[in-house]
Each structure stands twice: as structure tokens, then as C-alpha cells.
């Protein structure tokens, strides 16, 4: 489904990804782990098309289509979804409006008929169950005044509505207490399908207790230095990243 080959990316003069190779098949869950500053979030954002990063080499194909040629909205239309580490607050636009605008933008791009507000609300009712929310919250402005946990749940709700082929979760576990973590993980698991794939970017093994990955990759200084099965995450949990990086890890801020 996803083929990343020799991917290098920079911000200004600063090269952050230094040759990433990764293949993801339908139905798989891949965890990308690594110490702070290893380039994990950069990889997630580059895949979604964040304009701050310049791709200097390599290729990214989603079902054969060259993702790097596409605008961010075209990538979303092709089936890519990025759950943001820091979701953006948009005061003045309700969640309901935002979700419908996004949903209909995807429908339109795929030549399907757009849903009117009434039909969309029916669909939304169903999707809200994934994150255990009441519909009242849909009349609140997007992420505006939301707690950290609510913002992450909102990302999962958006994912449930947009039904991406490839979901990339960028540190969705950071800042969550155990209850919020469980809700988010349940949401991700509920959306799992044989024809969809997920990339989990995370610093900690904790999330992987709830969402069990098929593969774990360790990213250090912009390169994948080790890949393995789910047991690799447990090893990292026990031993830290030091044995892979060669430097003691600073305590997380």
C-alpha cells in the first residue's frame, strides 16, 4: 500500500530525514518509535504534505501513486489522514460544519454526491460512538477550549468520519491520562480493517499495550536503525534508546 524509498527531507539547511525506507501493507499497523528529535514527527508531517519541509530525495507511493507530487488536500483525497500531535483550534467554526466540509470535500474529489446537513448528522451520530461523545460537542468550535485529551479524541473522530486508507497518528498518546488513552486506542482499534493501514508515531511503549503493532521501527537521527515485531517495543521500554543511539537519553521535558 505505502512504499517509502530513500526519503530525505529538510527544514531550511537542516536535514532531518536521512534516507527512510518503509513498506506498509493493507491491514498492518506499524509503530515508529525513537528518541526526541529523531525525526518521527517530521516523517508523519512529510507524508501529509506539510509545507515547512522540503523533500530532497526519495519517493513515497500510495497504491502506486506518487504522494510527493500532491498537495496536502489531494493526499487526503487519496486516503491519507494525519492525526496531529497539536491539533489546531479554529474558533468560529463548529465541529459539525468542519467535519461536513471535510467529508464533502473528499466525496466531491471522488466524484460522489455531497451529503446535506441532515444526512450528515445521521452519519455523525454513528461516528460519535467511536469516541463516546454526545452530539452537543459538535456545536462547539473546532478544538477551541478543548482539553488535550478532547483534542486527541477529536482527531480520532475525524479519522472515523473520513475513513482513510492510511492513518498516521503523530504522538496521539502524548499528554493523555490512562482513560483518555484507552478511549483513543479503542477508537483506533474499532476502525481497523483489512484494507486499511496505520502508522503510529510514538515515543513510549504505553500506547502499544492498547494498540498492538505488527511491526516496530526505531528511528534515530533520521534513519530507521532497527525494525522488529511488537517485542521490540518492550525491549525499548526496558532498555531505553541508549543502546541504539549510543548516547544517554535526556529526560523528557
Amino acid at each position, binding site marked *: 500500500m505505502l512504499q517509502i524509498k530513500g526519503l530525505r527531507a529538510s527544514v531550511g539547511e537542516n536535514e532531518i530525514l536521512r534516507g527512510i525506507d518503509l513498506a506498509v501493507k493493507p491491514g498492518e499497523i506499524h509503530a515508529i518509535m525513537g528518541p526526541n528529535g529523531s525525526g518521527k514527527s517530521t516523517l508523519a508531517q512529510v507524508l*501529509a*504534505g*506539510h*509545507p*515547512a519541509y522540503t523533500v530532497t530525495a526519495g519517493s513515497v507511493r500510495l497504491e502506486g501513486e506518487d504522494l510527493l507530487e500532491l*498537495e*496536502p*488536500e489531494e*493526499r*487526503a*483525497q487519496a486516503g491519507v*489522514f*494525519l492525526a*496531529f500531535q497539536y*491539533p*489546531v483550534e*479554529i*474558533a*468560529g*467554526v463548529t465541529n459539525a460544519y*468542519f467535519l461536513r*466540509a*471535510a467529508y464533502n*470535500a*473528499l466525496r466531491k*474529489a471522488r466524484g460522489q454526491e455531497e451529503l446535506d*446537513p441532515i444526512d450528515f448528522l445521521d452519519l455523525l451520530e454513528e461516528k460519535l460512538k467511536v469516541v463516546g461523545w454526545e452530539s452537543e460537542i459538535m456545536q462547539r*468550535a473546532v478544538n477551541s477550549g478543548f482539553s488535550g485529551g478532547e483534542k486527541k479524541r477529536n482527531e480520532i473522530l*475525524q479519522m472515523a468520519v*473520513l475513513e482513510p486508507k492510511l492513518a498516521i497518528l503523530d504522538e496521539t498518546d502524548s499528554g493523555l491520562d490512562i482513560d483518555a488513552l484507552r478511549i483513543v486506542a479503542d477508537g483506533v482499534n474499532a476502525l481497523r480493517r483489512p484494507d486499511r493501514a496505520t502508522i503510529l508515531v510514538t515515543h513510549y511503549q504505553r500506547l502499544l499495550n492498547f494498540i498492538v503493532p505488527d511491526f516496530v521501527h526505531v528511528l534515530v537521527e533520521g534513519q530507521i536503525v532497527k525494525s522488529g515485531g511488537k517485542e521490540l517495543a518492550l525491549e525499548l521500554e526496558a532498555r531505553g534508546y541508549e543502546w541504539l543511539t549510543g548516547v544517554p537519553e535526556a529526560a523528557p521535558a
Partner: protein
Amino acid sequence: MNAAYLEAFERFTGNGGGQGPAGLLARRREAFDRFARAGFPTAKDEEWRFTPVAPIARATWRLDAGRTDPRVTSPQLQPYRFGAADWATLVFVDGRFVPALSHRPELPPGVSVEPFAEALAREPDLIDRVYARTATPDITPFAALNTAFAADGAIIRIAAGIELPEPIHVLYVTTDAAAGAAVQVRTLLLVERAARAQLVESYAGLGSAASFHNVVTEVIVGEGAWVEHTRIQRENEATFHIGLTQVEQERDSHYRSFTLAAGGAIARHDLRARLSGENVETLLYGLYLGRGEQLVDNHTTIFHDQPNCRSWEVYKGILDDQSHAVFNGKVFVQPIAQKTDAKQTNRNLLLSGGARVDTKPQLEIFADDVKCTHGATVGRIDESAFFYLQSRGIPRAEAQRVLTYAFAAEVVNEVASAPVREALDHLVAARLGIEG
């Protein structure tokens, strides 16, 4: 000053324009003299530095504005009625009251919603008592000119203790019959002690010709009264619109305004609120939209004359193309006005490289135990917001419309009256290219 103004004034007063109590006529004359002495402001006048009114001063306007277009029909006004056919509505076409287009449901005793002529006939000293008592001719030369010539307008009076559930709408529309004319109307709102009222004051252009609208509104909010005042200016984009709103608040009163400025070639609105009793609350919200070569200017002044009052002001602007906005927010806190809590915010969104904003907060504080803050920003849509929407599949051009609407909606949402808020929301969404 052009001699035509003097001729026009003599003609106006000679033709019954000076109808009413002698005091009223004297005030018109005094106002005219003041205008004649001062003339139109120029760029040298600090208050008008960024707003060149030369195109208004240069032109020769018909000042007797007697002509109105008799062909305006009720369906034509539908878009301006907020879908609320049952609100008491006074409609003025080209500066003259038109009974057939107005809607005058029975109102509770003590409530009157009348055009000038009726009020003069029914209660002659009412106009005399309130006309130009607060929006005095010395405020601006335009106010003086209006005071001299305003022949029609609305007088609304809500007696003590009456709570009106529905808004009152005063709708001033202009047609191409007013091409080349100065349309000068006046609105007076008197809300007595512990009464509650909502006023919507609209200015709408039905045609495309240039005319000059010079309007004045006076609002008196009695002790413990509650007033929401929505001013909607959507003139055609050839019109010169100069407006002054003067608000006087007595103790324990609450006044909130929302001002939308969307039309006009040059549109200037001065909103002045005097907090002349203790424990007053004043909320001023504004939204201005510029496109093409529009110039939109908002000057606000809040006079904290008494202690323990709160004023809260948020004005937002969205400027596209080559448009230009001016914002000036004055807050005066008198030595006696301790415990004043005043906050002013002006935020501007530029949608093009050619748009321009001049924003100036001006706080003059003479009391020491107060909390006064202000902030002004001029910027573009945040790239991280763009990316967020695009990453959800929303194309960039649509993302810009959604985020621009969001910027506007934040202040529209402050309107307390639900039907007014919803109507404004639709109006702003339509202007910004957003569908329901």
C-alpha cells in the same frame, strides 16, 4: 464651504423643514452656522487623517432630498428584513418614511416607534427634548450638517419597565433616485428606566449610483435598562456613508452594540458611548469587510465618566483587494472613574497584498485604580490552520473562505439576540462565499 449649502438651508427652513417647536429650528440654525464655519474636515484634521473626505466635499449634492423612488416594492426589501416579517419595522426610502413598506404591529402601551412627522404631530416637545441633545453639532462637521438638515427619521421610545421581546427594525434603503443627493436621516432611541429593547438599524443600497449618506443616531439608555443595538451598513459600493452614533448610559445600565460595515466607497462610523452613571456595562462589537477600493473607517470613543463601570470592545476587520481600513479606539477614564475595567481589541485579517490597515488605540487614563488593556493585530491566515484544513481534504481556496468566515463568526457570535445573530451569520457567510 460651497454657497449651495446656505441656499439649500434657507430653502429647507423656508419650505417647512423647520417644522416643529421653535427650539428645534433654533438648534438647526445653530448647527448650520457651525457647519458653515467649520466646513468639511481635511487630512490636516487628526480625526480624519486617514479618511480623505475630499470626494464628498468637492461634489455638489442635492440637499433637499425630497424625491424618493415610488417603485420600491416589499419583495425587494425581503433580503433586508431578516426573515422576520413580524418585527415592528419602519422603512425609509431615499430618506423618506414609506408607510406602505413598513410594518407596524400593535405595541404595548408606552412603546412608540414612529417617523418624525408622526412624533411631531403627537408629541411636539419629544423631538425638541431629544433632538441633538447628545449627538451635538460640535462633535463633527458632519453631525452639524445632519442636525441642520435631517428632515426625517425614526423616534423610538420604550417607557420605564417595559421589556420588548422582539427587535425593532429601522431600515433605510437608498435607490438610484437618490443619485447625487445627500440623504440625511436621524434615529433616536430612548429606553427608559429598567426597560429592555433591541434595535436593528440597517442601511441598504438597492441601486448602484453614488449618493452621500450622512446619518446620526442617538441612544439613551436609562437607569438599569438593557439595550442591544445592531447597526448594519450595506450600502452600494459607490456610496459615501458617514455615520455618528452617540450613546448615553445611566447607572446600572447595559448597552451592547454590534456594528457591521460592509458597503460604501468611503464608510466612516463614529460610535461614542458616554458612561454617565455608576455600574454601567458597555459592550461594543464590530466587523468590517473591505474589498475593491473601499475605505472603511471605525472610530470609537468610550467615556468612562463614573466609577465601577466596565467596557469591552472587540472590532475585527477583513480586508481584500486594495481596500483600506481605519480603526481608532479611544477610551477616556476620568479621575473619578476608579475601578474602571476597560478592554479593547482590534484584529485585522489581510487577504491580499494590496489591502491596508491603520489601527490606533488611544487610552487616556486619569484615574489610578483601573484595569485598562488594549491590543491590535494585523495579519494573515495562519499557515498551520491552512495545513490543518487541507490535511482533511479541504482545498486551499475553500480553506481560506472557511477560516475567514471563522474569523468573522467569532465576533458575530457575540450578538445576544438569536434571530439577529443568525441573520447576521447568513449575511456574513454569503458575503465571504460560504454556504450554510
